[in-house]
């Protein structure tokens, strides 16, 4: 079976509505499960698209080594990032590809149940998934699908928080001292995969590893979905080949040709100075800059904006999204946000504030149960590096122009209750 190399692969040309099961099978062919599937998945080198870029084949192998016949596959389409739209785009254009991938994974690990988790924030997407599951139910074959709609929080999409929700209806991350850790839904070992990863598995199962590797680099094969927002012509979700230059991705989206900086990975990601635009968009090329592909978020920030102000808004929101289980996260993140605000507004000894911020970053890093605080620390540290001149200007009492502007470039949801903020 052959298929053209052209993009898009997982993002089917939108007809304005999600493909029905029959249309989907006409376009992609039916699923066939062979013994070669595990080998193909291993050879494809698919990395998880949820943010951590963990090798999916290794995850599957870990679950295969678990005992028990009641395993589950959890499809994570929570889309925690406020500027991310890839899971939603995927589910509203071709939900059956995601479900196919989940079915393949269920066959591989021997799972009988597939839990599909979609945030209840977006009722349209919930409806699309409901419809798709119903179509499959009518076939009366394959594993059992169950739809879950947890509330939307930033940390609710974290895999242990999601499993916690399935168990106890609480979207709080759990403490896992020894990694890799096998999460359990009830007593069943659970394989948690991102919706986009699942869609890629759905294609690897059909067309094989060689086809998958026709795009991307040897270490990060395949294509990925990126959500591009900020100073762009129009915020979009695009499917790009991993390893293509950042400049070409930005140009395709109609981004500001001469930006100040680019936020990569998500709100727990890292800033990248605009001078590095020719870097390849894949983890191995971005690592020297401390950035990563993450959850496929790209936010373009123009020269008129104040990078510190944008970072401060993100950090304040992230501090508020903390589940406040661990002290370093519950108290540390608001402290970071407040330090950034002090730098913006000026104080009697601004240099000491910058030093204190750096010290606090080092203290907080790695001390939460999940990676939420680590991500914020990475963001702050990269901001201090990328906007070094800007920080210097604020410290010397000559702040940039952007700080007084009321225009914001990084979209941050409004806080539900301003009084929830712990630092004021």
């Amino acid at each position, binding site marked *: 079976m052959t298929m053209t190399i052209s993009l898009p692969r997982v993002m089917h040309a939108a007809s304005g509505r999600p493909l029905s099961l029959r249309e989907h099978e006409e376009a992609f062919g039916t699923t066939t499960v062979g013994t070669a599937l595990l080998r193909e998945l291993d050879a494809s080198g698919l990395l998880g698209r949820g943010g951590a870029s963990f090798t999916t084949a290794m995850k599957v192998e870990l679950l295969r080594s678990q005992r028990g016949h009641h395993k589950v596959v959890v499809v994570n389409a929570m889309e925690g990032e406020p500027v991310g739209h890839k899971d939603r785009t995927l589910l509203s254009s071709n939900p059956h590809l995601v479900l196919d991938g989940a079915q393949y994974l269920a066959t591989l690990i021997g799972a009988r149940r597939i839990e599909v988790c979609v945030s209840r924030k977006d009722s349209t997407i919930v409806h699309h998934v409901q419809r798709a599951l119903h179509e499959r139910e009518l076939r009366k074959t394959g594993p059992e699908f169950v739809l879950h709609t947890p509330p939307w929080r930033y940390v609710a999409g974290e895999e242990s928080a999601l499993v916690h929700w399935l168990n106890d209806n609480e979207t*709080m991350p*759990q*403490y896992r*001292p020894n990694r890799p850790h096998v999460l359990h839904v009830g007593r069943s070992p659970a394989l948690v995969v991102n919706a986009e990863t699942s869609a890629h598995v759905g294609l690897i199962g059909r067309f094989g590893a060689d086809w998958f590797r026709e795009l991307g680099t040897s270490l990060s094969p395949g294509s990925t979905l990126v959500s591009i927002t900020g100073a762009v012509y129009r915020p979009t979700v695009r499917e790009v080949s991993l390893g293509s230059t950042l400049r070409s991705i930005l140009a395709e989206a109609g981004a500001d040709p001469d930006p100040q900086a680019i936020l990569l990975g998500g709100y727990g990601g890292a800033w990248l100075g605009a001078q590095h635009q020719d870097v390849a968009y894949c983890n191995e090329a971005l690592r020297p800059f401390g950035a990563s592909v993450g959850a496929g978020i790209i936010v373009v920030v123009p020269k008129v904006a104040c990078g510190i102000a944008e970072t401060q808004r993100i950090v304040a929101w992230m501090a508020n999204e903390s589940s406040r*289980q*661990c*002290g*370093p*996260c519950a*108290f*540390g993140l608001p*402290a970071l946000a407040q330090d950034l605000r002090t730098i913006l507004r000026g104080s009697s000894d601004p240099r000491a504030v910058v030093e204190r911020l750096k010290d*606090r970053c080092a*203290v907080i890093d790695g*001390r*939460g*149960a999940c990676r939420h605080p680590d991500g914020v620390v990475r963001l702050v540290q990269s901001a201090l590096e990328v906007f070094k001149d800007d920080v210097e200007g604020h410290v010397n009492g000559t702040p940039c122009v952007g700080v007084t502007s009321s225009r914001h470039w990084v979209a941050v949801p409004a806080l539900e209750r301003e009084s929830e903020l712990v630092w004021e």
Partner: protein
Amino acid sequence: MSRRIDHFVLKVDPILCDGFGHCHELAPELVHVDEWGYPIINEQPTSSSDVALLKSAKLAVRGCPRQALRIERISGPT
């Protein structure tokens, strides 16, 4: 070569921990506290032959009001 488990580290469950700070009182050599009162634990493995340190680590584990601490025995630093 036999694998000898002769070192230990203290591990804290950050979710259970409420920052009482008893561990810092009981094992000041192993545990520092940050500005909010939460423990910063020395991540370097300590030799189990250091009886005084092992004893204070055990005291910290038993003295934790939230039972968030435990001693993890590991083979020595490579």
